[in-house]
Protein backbone atom coordinates (compact mmCIF):
# COMPACT_ATOMS: atom_id res chain seq x y z
CA UNK A 1 0.00 0.00 0.00
CA UNK A 2 1.12 3.49 -0.70
CA UNK A 3 1.40 5.86 2.17
CA UNK A 4 3.37 9.05 2.78
CA UNK A 5 5.63 7.08 5.13
CA UNK A 6 7.13 5.15 2.20
CA UNK A 7 8.93 8.26 1.10
CA UNK A 8 6.47 8.85 -1.69
CA UNK A 9 5.55 12.37 -2.48
CA UNK A 10 1.92 13.31 -2.00
CA UNK A 11 1.92 14.08 -5.71
CA UNK A 12 2.70 10.44 -6.57
CA UNK A 13 -0.07 9.16 -4.35
CA UNK A 14 -2.51 11.56 -5.91
CA UNK A 15 -1.41 10.40 -9.39
CA UNK A 16 -1.85 6.76 -8.34
CA UNK A 17 -5.32 7.50 -7.02
CA UNK A 18 -6.30 9.29 -10.21
CA UNK A 19 -4.85 6.46 -12.27
CA UNK A 20 -6.89 3.84 -10.43
CA UNK A 21 -10.11 5.81 -10.65
CA UNK A 22 -9.72 6.62 -14.34
CA UNK A 23 -8.65 3.05 -15.16
CA UNK A 24 -11.75 1.64 -13.45
CA UNK A 25 -13.89 4.14 -15.31
CA UNK A 26 -12.33 3.24 -18.69
CA UNK A 27 -12.63 -0.51 -18.01
CA UNK A 28 -16.29 -0.02 -17.06
CA UNK A 29 -17.03 1.81 -20.31
CA UNK A 30 -15.12 -0.85 -22.26
CA UNK A 31 -17.23 -3.64 -20.73
CA UNK A 32 -20.52 -1.77 -21.14
CA UNK A 33 -19.74 -0.97 -24.76
CA UNK A 34 -18.97 -4.59 -25.56
CA UNK A 35 -22.48 -5.41 -24.31
CA UNK A 36 -24.01 -2.85 -26.67
CA UNK A 37 -25.53 -4.36 -29.76
CA UNK A 38 -24.99 -2.41 -32.94
CA UNK A 39 -26.61 -3.30 -36.27
CA UNK A 40 -23.31 -4.61 -37.61
CA UNK A 41 -21.44 -6.95 -35.24
CA UNK A 42 -17.88 -5.66 -35.62
CA UNK A 43 -18.70 -1.99 -35.38
CA UNK A 44 -17.89 -0.12 -32.18
CA UNK A 45 -18.43 3.50 -31.32
CA UNK A 46 -15.23 3.50 -29.30
CA UNK A 47 -16.65 5.24 -26.24
CA UNK A 48 -13.51 4.50 -24.22
CA UNK A 49 -11.67 7.03 -26.35
CA UNK A 50 -13.78 9.67 -24.61
CA UNK A 51 -11.92 8.85 -21.39
CA UNK A 52 -8.60 9.07 -23.23
CA UNK A 53 -9.50 12.48 -24.59
CA UNK A 54 -10.79 13.92 -21.34
CA UNK A 55 -7.47 13.20 -19.61
CA UNK A 56 -5.37 14.60 -22.47
CA UNK A 57 -5.09 18.14 -21.04
CA UNK A 58 -4.23 17.01 -17.52
CA UNK A 59 -1.95 13.99 -17.76
CA UNK A 60 1.22 12.94 -19.53
CA UNK A 61 1.81 10.42 -22.25
CA UNK A 62 2.90 7.62 -19.87
CA UNK A 63 -0.22 8.03 -17.77
CA UNK A 64 -2.56 8.01 -20.79
CA UNK A 65 -0.85 5.02 -22.41
CA UNK A 66 -0.98 3.23 -19.05
CA UNK A 67 -4.73 3.82 -18.85
CA UNK A 68 -5.11 2.47 -22.39
CA UNK A 69 -3.05 -0.67 -21.68
CA UNK A 70 -4.81 -1.57 -18.46
CA UNK A 71 -8.20 -0.78 -19.98
CA UNK A 72 -7.74 -2.91 -23.09
CA UNK A 73 -6.19 -5.86 -21.23
CA UNK A 74 -8.48 -5.97 -18.20
CA UNK A 75 -11.54 -4.96 -20.22
CA UNK A 76 -10.95 -7.65 -22.86
CA UNK A 77 -10.30 -10.23 -20.12
CA UNK A 78 -13.58 -9.35 -18.40
CA UNK A 79 -15.59 -9.86 -21.58
CA UNK A 80 -13.66 -13.03 -22.42
CA UNK A 81 -11.87 -11.71 -25.49
CA UNK A 82 -8.29 -11.51 -24.26
CA UNK A 83 -5.81 -12.62 -26.96
CA UNK A 84 -8.60 -13.36 -29.44
CA UNK A 85 -8.14 -12.05 -33.00
CA UNK A 86 -10.55 -9.29 -32.05
CA UNK A 87 -8.28 -8.36 -29.16
CA UNK A 88 -5.32 -7.97 -31.49
CA UNK A 89 -7.40 -5.60 -33.61
CA UNK A 90 -8.64 -3.65 -30.59
CA UNK A 91 -5.13 -3.45 -29.15
CA UNK A 92 -3.42 -2.36 -32.36
CA UNK A 93 -6.13 0.07 -33.36
CA UNK A 94 -6.50 1.46 -29.85
CA UNK A 95 -2.77 1.94 -29.35
CA UNK A 96 -2.43 3.72 -32.70
CA UNK A 97 -5.46 5.89 -31.97
CA UNK A 98 -4.23 6.78 -28.47
CA UNK A 99 -0.82 7.78 -29.80
CA UNK A 100 -2.43 9.73 -32.65
CA UNK A 101 -4.69 11.62 -30.26
CA UNK A 102 -1.85 12.44 -27.85
CA UNK A 103 0.24 13.57 -30.83
CA UNK A 104 -2.53 15.68 -32.32
CA UNK A 105 -3.29 17.31 -28.98
CA UNK A 106 0.34 18.21 -28.36
CA UNK A 107 1.41 19.23 -31.85
CA UNK A 108 -1.60 21.24 -32.94
CA UNK A 109 -1.66 23.24 -29.69
CA UNK A 110 -5.37 23.97 -29.16
CA UNK A 111 -6.18 24.26 -32.86
CA UNK A 112 -8.76 21.48 -32.60
CA UNK A 113 -11.38 20.83 -29.97
CA UNK A 114 -12.01 17.23 -28.88
CA UNK A 115 -14.04 16.87 -32.08
CA UNK A 116 -10.96 17.12 -34.31
CA UNK A 117 -8.85 15.03 -31.95
CA UNK A 118 -11.53 12.37 -31.84
CA UNK A 119 -11.81 12.33 -35.63
CA UNK A 120 -8.07 11.71 -35.94
CA UNK A 121 -8.26 8.95 -33.31
CA UNK A 122 -11.26 7.21 -34.88
CA UNK A 123 -9.81 7.44 -38.37
CA UNK A 124 -6.41 6.07 -37.35
CA UNK A 125 -8.06 3.37 -35.22
CA UNK A 126 -10.06 2.07 -38.18
CA UNK A 127 -7.20 2.43 -40.65
CA UNK A 128 -4.82 0.39 -38.48
CA UNK A 129 -7.49 -2.14 -37.63
CA UNK A 130 -8.37 -2.90 -41.25
CA UNK A 131 -4.69 -3.26 -42.18
CA UNK A 132 -4.15 -5.54 -39.16
CA UNK A 133 -7.16 -7.64 -40.17
CA UNK A 134 -5.83 -7.91 -43.73
CA UNK A 135 -2.46 -8.97 -42.33
CA UNK A 136 -3.88 -11.51 -39.88
CA UNK A 137 -5.98 -13.34 -42.44
CA UNK A 138 -3.49 -12.66 -45.27
CA UNK A 139 -6.10 -11.33 -47.64
CA UNK A 140 -5.56 -8.02 -49.36
CA UNK A 141 -9.22 -8.00 -50.35
CA UNK A 142 -10.01 -7.06 -46.72
CA UNK A 143 -8.66 -3.63 -47.61
CA UNK A 144 -11.72 -3.16 -49.80
CA UNK A 145 -13.61 -2.64 -46.53
CA UNK A 146 -11.41 0.32 -45.69
CA UNK A 147 -13.56 3.09 -47.23
CA UNK A 148 -16.57 1.74 -45.38
CA UNK A 149 -14.77 1.68 -42.02
CA UNK A 150 -13.16 5.08 -42.56
CA UNK A 151 -16.55 6.56 -43.43
CA UNK A 152 -18.02 5.04 -40.30
CA UNK A 153 -15.13 6.41 -38.24
CA UNK A 154 -16.10 9.96 -39.24
CA UNK A 155 -19.51 9.35 -37.65
CA UNK A 156 -18.26 7.66 -34.47
CA UNK A 157 -15.38 10.13 -34.20
CA UNK A 158 -17.82 13.02 -34.31
CA UNK A 159 -20.12 11.40 -31.73
CA UNK A 160 -17.23 10.79 -29.32
CA UNK A 161 -15.67 14.18 -29.88
CA UNK A 162 -18.88 16.12 -29.34
CA UNK A 163 -19.68 14.09 -26.20
CA UNK A 164 -16.15 14.77 -24.91
CA UNK A 165 -16.54 18.48 -25.65
CA UNK A 166 -19.77 18.66 -23.68
CA UNK A 167 -18.43 16.61 -20.77
CA UNK A 168 -15.31 18.72 -20.57
CA UNK A 169 -17.37 21.90 -20.41
CA UNK A 170 -19.36 20.30 -17.59
CA UNK A 171 -22.61 20.18 -19.49
CA UNK A 172 -23.29 16.45 -19.20
CA UNK A 173 -23.99 14.18 -22.13
Amino acid at each position, binding site marked *: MLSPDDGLALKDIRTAAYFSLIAVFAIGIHVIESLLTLPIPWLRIGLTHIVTMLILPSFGMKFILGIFLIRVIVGSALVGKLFSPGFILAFGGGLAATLAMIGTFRITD*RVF*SFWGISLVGAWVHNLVQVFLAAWIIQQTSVLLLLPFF*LGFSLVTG*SINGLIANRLFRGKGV
Partner: protein
Amino acid sequence: MAAEPPFRATPTRWDIALLAVLFLMTVSSIFAFHALKPRGETILISANGKTLGFYPLDRDRIIRAVGPVGTTVIQIKNGQAAIIQAPCAHKLCQKMGPIPSRGRAMICIPNRIVVEIKEKTGQQTDAITR
Protein backbone atom coordinates in the same frame (compact mmCIF):
# COMPACT_ATOMS: atom_id res chain seq x y z
CA MET B 1 0.91 23.49 -17.64
CA ALA B 2 0.09 26.87 -16.14
CA ALA B 3 1.65 28.81 -18.99
CA GLU B 4 -0.49 27.18 -21.65
CA PRO B 5 -3.85 28.66 -22.59
CA PRO B 6 -6.74 26.67 -21.15
CA PHE B 7 -8.26 24.02 -23.37
CA ARG B 8 -11.76 25.14 -24.19
CA ALA B 9 -13.43 22.14 -25.83
CA THR B 10 -15.64 24.12 -28.15
CA PRO B 11 -15.78 23.16 -31.84
CA THR B 12 -13.51 25.24 -34.00
CA ARG B 13 -13.55 25.81 -37.74
CA TRP B 14 -10.44 23.64 -37.87
CA ASP B 15 -12.49 20.72 -36.60
CA ILE B 16 -14.82 21.12 -39.56
CA ALA B 17 -11.91 21.57 -41.97
CA LEU B 18 -10.38 18.37 -40.61
CA LEU B 19 -13.68 16.55 -41.05
CA ALA B 20 -13.75 17.69 -44.68
CA VAL B 21 -10.15 16.58 -45.28
CA LEU B 22 -10.72 13.17 -43.71
CA PHE B 23 -13.92 12.81 -45.71
CA LEU B 24 -12.02 13.48 -48.94
CA MET B 25 -9.33 11.00 -47.92
CA THR B 26 -12.03 8.42 -47.17
CA VAL B 27 -13.63 8.94 -50.56
CA SER B 28 -10.29 8.74 -52.34
CA SER B 29 -9.52 5.47 -50.54
CA ILE B 30 -12.41 3.95 -52.50
CA PHE B 31 -10.45 4.55 -55.68
CA ALA B 32 -7.07 3.73 -54.19
CA PHE B 33 -8.16 0.23 -53.27
CA HIS B 34 -10.29 -0.36 -56.30
CA ALA B 35 -7.21 -1.74 -58.02
CA LEU B 36 -6.97 -4.43 -55.35
CA LYS B 37 -10.23 -6.03 -56.38
CA PRO B 38 -9.37 -9.66 -56.96
CA ARG B 39 -9.40 -10.43 -60.62
CA GLY B 40 -8.58 -13.81 -62.06
CA GLU B 41 -5.70 -13.78 -64.41
CA THR B 42 -6.83 -16.41 -66.86
CA ILE B 43 -10.08 -17.71 -68.25
CA LEU B 44 -10.59 -21.32 -69.06
CA ILE B 45 -12.93 -21.98 -71.97
CA SER B 46 -14.31 -25.42 -72.52
CA ALA B 47 -16.73 -26.62 -75.16
CA ASN B 48 -18.70 -29.81 -74.80
CA GLY B 49 -16.56 -30.86 -71.84
CA LYS B 50 -13.28 -30.44 -73.68
CA THR B 51 -10.83 -27.71 -72.75
CA LEU B 52 -10.33 -25.21 -75.53
CA GLY B 53 -7.64 -23.37 -73.69
CA PHE B 54 -6.55 -20.80 -71.12
CA TYR B 55 -6.65 -17.18 -72.15
CA PRO B 56 -4.99 -14.40 -70.13
CA LEU B 57 -7.34 -11.61 -69.13
CA ASP B 58 -4.81 -8.84 -69.50
CA ARG B 59 -4.79 -9.02 -73.28
CA ASP B 60 -7.89 -7.91 -75.19
CA ARG B 61 -9.04 -10.45 -77.71
CA ILE B 62 -12.01 -12.26 -79.15
CA ILE B 63 -12.35 -16.03 -78.96
CA ARG B 64 -14.81 -18.10 -80.95
CA ALA B 65 -15.90 -21.35 -79.36
CA VAL B 66 -17.81 -23.81 -81.49
CA GLY B 67 -20.41 -25.97 -79.77
CA PRO B 68 -23.30 -28.19 -80.86
CA VAL B 69 -25.61 -25.23 -81.57
CA GLY B 70 -23.20 -22.84 -83.19
CA THR B 71 -20.45 -20.36 -82.40
CA THR B 72 -20.25 -18.56 -79.06
CA VAL B 73 -18.16 -15.41 -79.20
CA ILE B 74 -16.23 -14.52 -76.05
CA GLN B 75 -14.63 -11.14 -75.71
CA ILE B 76 -11.79 -10.24 -73.33
CA LYS B 77 -11.66 -6.53 -72.72
CA ASN B 78 -10.23 -4.41 -69.90
CA GLY B 79 -9.38 -7.47 -67.83
CA GLN B 80 -12.89 -8.87 -68.00
CA ALA B 81 -14.45 -11.61 -70.06
CA ALA B 82 -17.95 -11.55 -71.50
CA ILE B 83 -19.94 -13.58 -73.98
CA ILE B 84 -20.92 -11.08 -76.62
CA GLN B 85 -22.66 -13.38 -79.05
CA ALA B 86 -24.52 -16.59 -78.34
CA PRO B 87 -26.23 -18.86 -80.84
CA CYS B 88 -28.85 -20.14 -78.40
CA ALA B 89 -32.47 -19.02 -77.92
CA HIS B 90 -32.40 -17.27 -74.52
CA LYS B 91 -28.93 -15.75 -74.67
CA LEU B 92 -28.72 -15.80 -70.86
CA CYS B 93 -24.93 -15.95 -70.93
CA GLN B 94 -24.84 -12.89 -73.15
CA LYS B 95 -27.20 -10.99 -70.88
CA MET B 96 -25.26 -11.67 -67.69
CA GLY B 97 -22.46 -9.43 -68.90
CA PRO B 98 -18.79 -9.65 -67.91
CA ILE B 99 -17.71 -11.82 -65.00
CA PRO B 100 -15.52 -9.84 -62.68
CA SER B 101 -14.29 -12.02 -59.88
CA ARG B 102 -12.31 -15.13 -59.30
CA GLY B 103 -14.23 -18.38 -59.15
CA ARG B 104 -17.14 -17.16 -61.23
CA ALA B 105 -18.24 -18.75 -64.47
CA MET B 106 -20.37 -18.12 -67.51
CA ILE B 107 -22.15 -21.17 -68.78
CA CYS B 108 -24.07 -21.57 -72.00
CA ILE B 109 -26.00 -24.76 -71.53
CA PRO B 110 -27.47 -25.19 -75.04
CA ASN B 111 -24.11 -24.70 -76.69
CA ARG B 112 -22.19 -26.51 -73.90
CA ILE B 113 -19.71 -23.69 -73.47
CA VAL B 114 -18.19 -22.98 -70.05
CA VAL B 115 -16.06 -19.92 -69.38
CA GLU B 116 -14.40 -19.98 -65.96
CA ILE B 117 -12.05 -17.52 -64.32
CA LYS B 118 -8.95 -19.29 -63.08
CA GLU B 119 -5.77 -18.09 -61.50
CA LYS B 120 -2.62 -18.15 -63.49
CA THR B 121 -2.06 -21.76 -64.46
CA GLY B 122 0.40 -23.70 -62.35
CA GLN B 123 0.15 -21.09 -59.59
CA GLN B 124 -3.02 -22.14 -57.89
CA THR B 125 -2.64 -21.24 -54.24
CA ASP B 126 -5.31 -20.60 -51.68
CA ALA B 127 -5.75 -17.61 -49.46
CA ILE B 128 -3.98 -19.07 -46.42
CA THR B 129 -0.74 -20.25 -47.95
CA ARG B 130 -0.11 -17.15 -49.95
